[in-house]
């Protein structure tokens, strides 16, 4: 009897539609499709906000920056070129840049606890026992991070998660800027190779 009623229900389900990729959503956003923008937002917003908040710590400020990021995505989706990289990379690169901009623009950035930048990555993972997939991803990065020297890890964390420029990193660690550059480069090359990016 239930089967009879269900056939009466009007639904416009598109048959066997594969789940939209972030790329295809972004390409539709470039056509001004607001619905795709909403879907894209649902998919990536927690990731975007998570990264921004990692840098800024403050939730309200992080949401402001996330809003700037998504407005920029909307405005510049027309310039996204899938030939040049994955949509998610494009989005996260933008989010990181905006967060760094906010840090550098704010006077209080200099008061931020330096430890924020170099806090142990492990602590972050401990809060996240919930999802197997995320756990795996974290484990991958964590494992790769262990292949770095302590000095490389410290410099990379300060730069990426702390949002410090290399000259700030040099000041914080009281080492020459050339040494910072070397640590960042050697460390990132090591990470790249460990994580099989290239």
């Amino acid at each position, binding site marked *: 009897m239930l089967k009879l009623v269900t056939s009466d229900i009007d639904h416009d389900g598109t048959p066997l539609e594969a789940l939209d990729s972030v790329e295809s959503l972004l390409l539709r956003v470039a056509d001004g499709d*607001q619905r795709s923008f909403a879907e894209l937002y649902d998919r*990536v917003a927690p990731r975007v906000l998570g990264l921004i908040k990692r840098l800024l710590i403050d939730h309200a400020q992080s949401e*402001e920056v996330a809003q700037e990021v998504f407005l920029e995505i909307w405005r510049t989706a027309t310039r996204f070129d899938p030939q040049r990289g994955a949509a998610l990379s494009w989005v996260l690169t933008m989010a990181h840049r905006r967060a760094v901009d906010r840090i550098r623009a704010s006077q209080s950035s200099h008061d931020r606890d330096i430890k924020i930048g170099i806090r142990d990555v492990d602590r972050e993972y401990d809060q996240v026992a*919930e999802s197997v*997939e995320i756990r795996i991803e974290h484990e991958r990065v964590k494992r790769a991070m262990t292949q770095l020297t302590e000095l490389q890890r410290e410099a990379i964390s300060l730069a990426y998660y702390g949002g410090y420029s290399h000259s700030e990193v040099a000041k914080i660690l009281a080492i020459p800027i050339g040494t910072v*550059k070397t640590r960042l480069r050697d460390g990132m090359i090591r990470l790249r190779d460990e994580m099989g990016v290239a």
Partner: protein
Amino acid sequence: MATNDDSRMNTGAFALGALSPEELERFIAAAESDPELAAEADGLSATAVLLGLASTPVEPSAKLKVDLMAAIASTPQLSRETVVPLAEVRDDEPSASARVEDARPQPVEAGAAEQKARTRWFARPATLLVSAAAAIGLFVGGGFVGSALTGDTPVVVDQQAAGLAQIYAASDVQSVRSEVEGGGVATLVWSGELGRSAVVVDGLAPLPAGSVYEAWYINDAGAAPAGTFDATGAHKTSWHLLDGTMSAGDTVGVTVEPAGGSKTPTTTPIVAIASA
């Protein structure tokens, strides 16, 4: 040559966003004429994205999405074809009315050239990120996963989130959207391989007191209960990981049932989505 040697040492700092604006400009100029440098910069930039993904997802407030949807409605997009001269990029900002948070101090923006440069890849083939993206794709599949990671979420929700993420991660994941009777949209997401499915609902009408939504697997054998859920709360988007195993060709329906759920449907489904 000296300048390039300098830039060569800067690939790590470039990828991490740690160069000064002047250095960045020099770096870009150097990379444009040096494919090897460009390739290294791209690879390290892709690596930096993985660092970004290692951060714990954070669920945004419902307000953020509402504000954004309102803002984009009045925010023009950049034109597609024209390569905008760098100087114009800043002028193309959304109009004041489009700004949702006008009163807030805006950060001092980086220069236009820098802005542009920092979101570009140099010469990256589309396939370069494949291994990373394969891992990443799993997780962005569900923006919902993030909601399970914020604070004191009950364990059962986390398990549900993990299940949903698993479905999104499956190689045979499929989805079908359907309008819901009485308003809203439901999307069925499933993997035949896993035999699992989830219903994602958005904008459903509020339930009468003492009622729940109940999901059903519907096939020739009738309707089998697949768990109750409720779509109220702070987020109007909600989802339910169906209990039991989905068989190929099952239709998934949702009815409104008395609290606690029913053994067989007592009302007409508000939505029924066929998986084949």
